[in-house]
């Protein structure tokens, strides 16, 4: 149980959360607080296992997961954009539906209830890079992950570039800041929203696929709140892609601590609370900090005003 192992596992755990978080970030950049990430991720995880089972190929499984999750998010988008359903209500119902569907479909598809384990040949392959071995610690931590984890680690940089430097990113930022102004500037708001949500769906599918296929099994409620955790991570990072990378790695670290410390004899139930407690703090902390800063600023300006008054 050395620190290098813990950090390696942390990167592996951070992968799926990072993918989903980046999707949620894009959605919240166009003013859609996508609470249903959890549901899309669950659908992605289940469908990727189904796809891998029927085709016998991991990557076709991933494709299947992405397609299912994207299809689901298109329905979600139509519901909240066209039919004007309350987003929170729609999100919760998507999560309930995803959990019910996966719970039920597990029986007719695989003939089992609760969990299904694929044969280990269908595990997500890991990439071994020889040149990384030369670097002492970081090389070890970053080596031997699946392709999707590497993609997840690069993604925040790509998104930061797309959002800040491209025309599409400008459109996204404009829609997020002020929809009416964006309309008057000739931006197709609906198109931007749909496309951002589609990318969100693809990323959720990838996140779910990585989660399920890296351990080549699906069990009911496998996402276990990771969708909400991802939301908490982007809330803490203030929707900045690069800061989100750090917060997601932090969550990965918490999860890997749970895995490694419970082997040493700590109560696994109390340890299990750690990621959720961290997410709770992450969701609340920015607001508390904002209040504190606001309060201090006001006090400061008040004292300045008073001293100014007496000086005159």
């Amino acid at each position: 149980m050395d620190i290098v192992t813990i950090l390696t596992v942390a990167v592996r755990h951070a992968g799926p959360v990072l993918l989903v978080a980046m999707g949620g970030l894009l959605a919240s950049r166009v003013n859609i607080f996508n609470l249903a990430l959890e549901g899309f991720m669950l659908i992605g995880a289940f469908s990727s296992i189904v796809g891998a089972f029927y085709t016998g190929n991991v990557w076709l499984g991933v494709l299947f997961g992405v397609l299912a999750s994207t299809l689901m998010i298109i329905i979600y988008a139509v519901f909240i954009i066209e039919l004007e359903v309350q987003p929170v209500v729609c999100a919760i119902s998507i999560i309930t539906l995803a959990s019910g569907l996966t719970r039920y479909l597990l029986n007719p598809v695989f003939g089992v209830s609760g969990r299904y384990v694929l044969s280990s040949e269908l595990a997500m392959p890991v990439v071994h890079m020889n040149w990384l071995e030369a670097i002492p610690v970081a090389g070890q931590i970053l080596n031997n992950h699946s392709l999707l984890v590497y993609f997840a680690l690069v993604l925040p940089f790509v998104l930061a570039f797309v959002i800040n430097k491209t025309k599409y990113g400008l459109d996204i930022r404009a829609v997020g800041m002020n929809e009416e102004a964006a309309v008057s500037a000739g931006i197709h708001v609906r198109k931007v929203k749909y496309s951002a949500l589609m990318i969100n769906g693809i990323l959720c599918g990838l996140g779910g696929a990585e989660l399920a296929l890296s351990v080549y099994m699906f069990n009911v409620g496998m996402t276990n709140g990771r969708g909400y955790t991802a939301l908490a991570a982007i809330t803490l990072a203030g929707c900045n892609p690069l800061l989100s990378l750090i917060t997601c790695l932090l969550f990965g670290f918490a999860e890997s601590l749970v895995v490694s410390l419970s082997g040493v004899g700590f109560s696994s139930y109390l340890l299990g609370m750690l990621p959720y407690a961290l997410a709770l703090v992450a969701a609340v902390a920015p607001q508390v900090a904002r209040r504190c800063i606001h309060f201090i600023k006001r006090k400061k300006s008040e004292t300045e005003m008073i001293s100014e008054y007496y000086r005159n």
Partner: protein
Amino acid sequence: MRNRKVINSVLAIMIAFIMGGLMVLLSGDSPLETYSVLLKGSFGSLNALKNTIRYSIPVVLLAYSFSVCNQCGYFNISHESQMYSASLAIVMVSELTQGWPSWLRLILMMAAACMASIAACMIPAAAKFGLGVSEVVVGVMMNYLMAYLTKHMIAFSFIAQPGSSSIMSLPVSESVGAVSITVSTVVIILLYQFVMKKTIPGYRLSVVGRNPLFANASGLPSMRIMLSSAVVGGLLTGICAIGEMLGYYHIIYSDFAVDIGFNGMTAALLGAQNAIGMLLGSLLLGALKSGSVLLTVVTSVPAELVDCVKGFVMFFATVTFIRSDVWMRKGGK
């Protein structure tokens, strides 16, 4: 307006059942047979009917709890954590008051359960109204945290049952009869309706719910009223937990509240937050639950079908199929 809501809910249920039927058909069973078994298992005999009512009662209470909070703009989805904390409080009080007179213990247990549930309900509400954090994220995190804390308590603390194969708490010896639970639920619902429709606090609550800014401007303490709606929501969940723990379970099992979690919200949405609608919505969910027992016995269709149908019901209940604005224009003034 009311007619449209009724049609909406009925449409949602019908589409949900059709989708569920398609699922059954795709997996190679007969949907008609499945649904007739479900119906028989929920309303076919006196015993089945009793079971349906037994499973509907907690859903009704949770639906009201959701509805009262939702009126003030607080999306109360931490029912699970409230149930866990209330039942933990019940078992703890029961352990600490061994040998006391029975009536005193019952009162103490109920009070503790309500207090614990209200406390759990207030945390997301405080985060929402005090800090402006999304109460859904906080509430869901609370659900996971309380589930783990409960597991820890029933595995390693003074309320853990030693020597059992799976983790569970020590049993509570006091109990409440099924009849008194049913009667008190009916009384609570009537009381709630009376308070909401005919008294000043109820009126204030609905004013704040309609428009908090207006309520603030006309001098109502809207923050205090919003928080008190969360207190009422927590209280109703606490009562639900009392009924479940002292009426049926008597022991805390791991994950016993997971099934209940979102049911209250589904029933409230289905009933369009209207008194009779919510009752019927809860009855539907209770019937699904009690029918699922027979389903696994008689047919090869797994009981998880019920989860699936529940998901579809909730999903379609969110949509307004008949758009009010379109009707307004056509009915035209």
